């Protein structure tokens, strides 16, 4: 390794030789197949899409090779490899070399695909996208390095750049549609792209140079401002009245506020503008209403997966020693988690109700909604309708809460297998349910209705039996007063579902039984019972 450039190149090679070899292998295999197969037009017709996919895949690999960024634990970001800064090499070589290699790499791979794979098939591919890809590589690297401190901004700008360059790549296709001269337009865009690459190169040089000199202050400055705001916010300065209240504060500060914050942000930045711009349209009003009501449920199931872990922000599932050594019973910790979940659910629904009570009367187009409501009023009467509304809200809140606490028993167990397994099982059940619904819709016959109902009844019945059995099994390890409390909770929740089901159901002979059976299911029982045992297994390994 006589020169630094050779050493740096070797390093890129040795870190990524697997990807590089796979790109070469994929490309040459495709080229080989093309040469060996006799009837090429058939391939072109039938398997072209596979070739395109492989080409995109190998280009993606090339981008990953020249991504050239590492996690920097000191600054807590993923950016230009920090360790290279100590080498006696000027910054422009440090950044320029991977950029140059990246452009050459992406160009070579593109050229190989067009000339060795597609050309023998008789399909000519323009070389313009190759040029765009080269510039794209420069911009990609530049953005990855210079926005290292701004994770979200970086993702957004990479997406934006990707879309922009896709359009650049497709320019030859639009040329026929444009009124201007073909050559002039291409020349113009060539200059534009060269400008882009200059900006990318100098931008990367500048920002990496700054990072090398301990700069990259943007993030630090932002953080300082955020810190200043955080400092200005009044904080709790009173002592906690009990260990439970301290733990409640801990859990709330850790993960409890997240669900309300996400819902508030979504309402503010998605639903508010959408509802405003679509205020004339009655369909949009209905869709928005549906999404607003569904949003907390979806977010709660997603956030609940993290909330179930001992620490939301950590990938480690074991209970941190900091918590494990507190003289605090494992069962109490679960209770606190449930209370925090309940608190965030209450806040979330208060937010949703506030939004609805502002939006529906003030700027929503509620014509259809009003008609529907009037019909319902005629059919069921005012009191019933009001009860349905209240009960639905309660049911929604209960299901949101369930989403938050439902995974506690796997999340707190400290076992990654169980945690991931649980998530996979959920996903499979979800997919199966959708498949089942689609299947049922396609094969539904009214004359088989009774058979369906009896099947459904049997399924629900066995589910209820399994649930109760599991609950008995899991609850016998827990102290009677707590069992009493949870049973009351469950009874109240289930009662709410039953009442709602009965109010909603039409007066047909079999539906009531089904609804009662179904209403017994959504409020968790066994999984709450398993949670303390699961946590104590994690705590005392």
């Amino acid at each position: 390794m006589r020169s630094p450039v050779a050493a740096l190149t070797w390093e890129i090679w040795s870190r990524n030789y697997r990807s590089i070899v796979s790109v070469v292998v994929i490309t040459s295999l495709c080229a080989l197949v093309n040469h060996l197969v006799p009837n090429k037009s058939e391939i072109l017709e039938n398997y072209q899409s596979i070739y395109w996919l492989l080409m995109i895949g190998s280009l993606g690999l090339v981008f990953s090779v020249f991504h050239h960024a590492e996690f920097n634990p000191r600054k807590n970001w993923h950016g230009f490899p920090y360790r290279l800064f100590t080498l006696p090499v000027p910054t422009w070589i440090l950044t320029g070399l991977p950029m140059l290699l990246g452009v050459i790499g992406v160009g070579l791979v593109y050229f190989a695909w067009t000339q060795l794979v597609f050309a023998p098939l008789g399909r000519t591919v323009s070389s313009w996208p190759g040029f765009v890809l080269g510039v794209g590589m420069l911009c990609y690297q530049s953005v990855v390095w210079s926005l290292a401190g701004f994770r979200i901004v970086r993702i957004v700008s990479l997406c934006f750049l990707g879309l922009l360059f896709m359009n650049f790549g497709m320019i030859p296709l639009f040329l026929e549609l444009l009124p201007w001269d073909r050559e002039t337009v291409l020349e113009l865009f060539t200059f534009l792209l060269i400008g882009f690459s200059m900006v990318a190169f100098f931008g990367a040089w500048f920002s990496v140079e700054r990072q090398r000199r301990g700069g990259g202050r943007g993030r630090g400055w932002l953080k300082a401002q955020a810190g200043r705001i955080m400092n200005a916010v009044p904080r709790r300065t009173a002592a906690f009245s009990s260990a439970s209240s301290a733990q409640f504060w801990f859990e709330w500060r850790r993960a409890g506020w997240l669900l309300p914050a996400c819902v508030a942000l979504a309402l503010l930045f998605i639903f508010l503008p959408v509802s405003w711009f679509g205020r004339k349209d009655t369909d949009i009003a209905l869709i928005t209403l549906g999404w607003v009501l569904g949003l907390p449920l979806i977010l709660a199931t997603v956030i609940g997966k993290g909330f179930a872990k001992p620490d939301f922000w950590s990938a480690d599932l074991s209970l941190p020693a900091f918590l494990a050594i507190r003289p605090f019973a494992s069962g109490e910790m679960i209770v606190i988690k449930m209370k925090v979940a309940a608190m965030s659910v209450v806040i979330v629904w208060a937010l949703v109700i506030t939004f609805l009570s502002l939006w529906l009367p003030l700027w929503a187009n509620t014509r259809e909604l009003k008609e529907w409501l009037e019909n319902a009023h005629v059919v069921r009467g005012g009191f019933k309708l009001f009860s349905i509304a209240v009960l639905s809200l309660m049911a929604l809140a209960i299901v949101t809460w369930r989403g938050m606490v439902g995974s506690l028993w796997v999340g707190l167990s400290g076992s990654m297998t169980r945690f991931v397994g649980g998530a996979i099982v959920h996903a499979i059940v979800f997919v199966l349910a959708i498949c089942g619904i689609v299947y049922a819709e396609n094969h539904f016959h009214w004359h088989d209705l009774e058979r369906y109902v009896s099947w459904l009844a049997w399924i629900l019945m066995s589910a209820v039996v399994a649930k109760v059995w599991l609950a008995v099994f899991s609850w016998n390890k827990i102290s009677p007063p707590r069992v009493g409390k949870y049973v009351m909770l469950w009874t109240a929740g289930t009662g709410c579902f039953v009442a709602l089901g009965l109010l909603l159901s039409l007066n047909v002979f079999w539906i009531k039984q089904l609804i009662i059976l179904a209403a017994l299911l959504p409020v968790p029982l066994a999984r709450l019972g398993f949670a303390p045992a699961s946590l104590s297994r994690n705590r005392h390994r």
Partner: protein
Amino acid sequence: MKFPSPSSAEAVVSIAGLSRRFGSRTVLNELSLHVPRGSVFGLVGENGAGKTTLIKHILGLLRAEQGTVKVFGIDPVADPVSVLGRIGYLSEQPDLPGWMRVDEFIRYTQAFYPKWDVAYAESLRKQFGLDASARLKTLSKGQQAKAGLLAAQAHRPELLLLDEPSSGLDPIVRRDILEAVIRTVADEGRTVFFSSHLLEEIERVSDHVAMLHRGKLVLCGPLDEIKARHHRVTLHFETAQTKPPVIAGALSVSGQGKEWRVLCNGGRTELPAIVSALGARIVEEHTPSLNEIFVAQAETIVGDRPTTTSPPH
């Protein structure tokens, strides 16, 4: 002021026949240990000897697979609340929630310990120079250790458990930690159990020492007794020896030529006879430091290394 004699006092921690395996690796092997009330119990051992595993068993963070662990006569797994409430714990990496501010951290910890001494905590905070509104993650390693120490100490625990508290810290923080140990034990009836690589620290502050090696206890008892049992003698031979002399009961023999150093455990009365049978005489005799005993013990047990001869200088 009265300092209870450790040998007569009851045990704060008693461990009997404790074994623990992680996969196929035996980390603790048939370990039995008693920590007398009011003692400073030093646990020494190489990295990976099982010190942290032992301490985690005392905290109840690990379940005893075999054998029993009793702290204050209670199983820490069965009743973590009453055991942990009387323990203060500080580890090498005080796993503190970095997002908390120092004052929040103090108040949060306070809530769990009814005996928390607010004034004492505040005086410690000032003594350690911890800024109340600073976030824990912005503190230096030494300051984090001090914050951890504050939280472990301010409820005046009956048992202070320190797991390699001073490794990687500067002498000033190390001194703070040792002072905490002394203050704890000087309050009547309190006990300190701490593990360390720094044998000088252990020698200074502890009165009981246990030495772990590959999950087994090789030495355990009052420090004075251990030191009184071990002797370091220098032997002088009339002629240069090419091989180290073989001495029964010697833990380590090192040297070259005419002078050899021997460290032995007990057997002081028989030693002169053995030595003169070899044709040598004792020219020097010392009480070895804990460090020397530790190294000699570790080397004896390893056995498979040719540690008995030191390389020629």
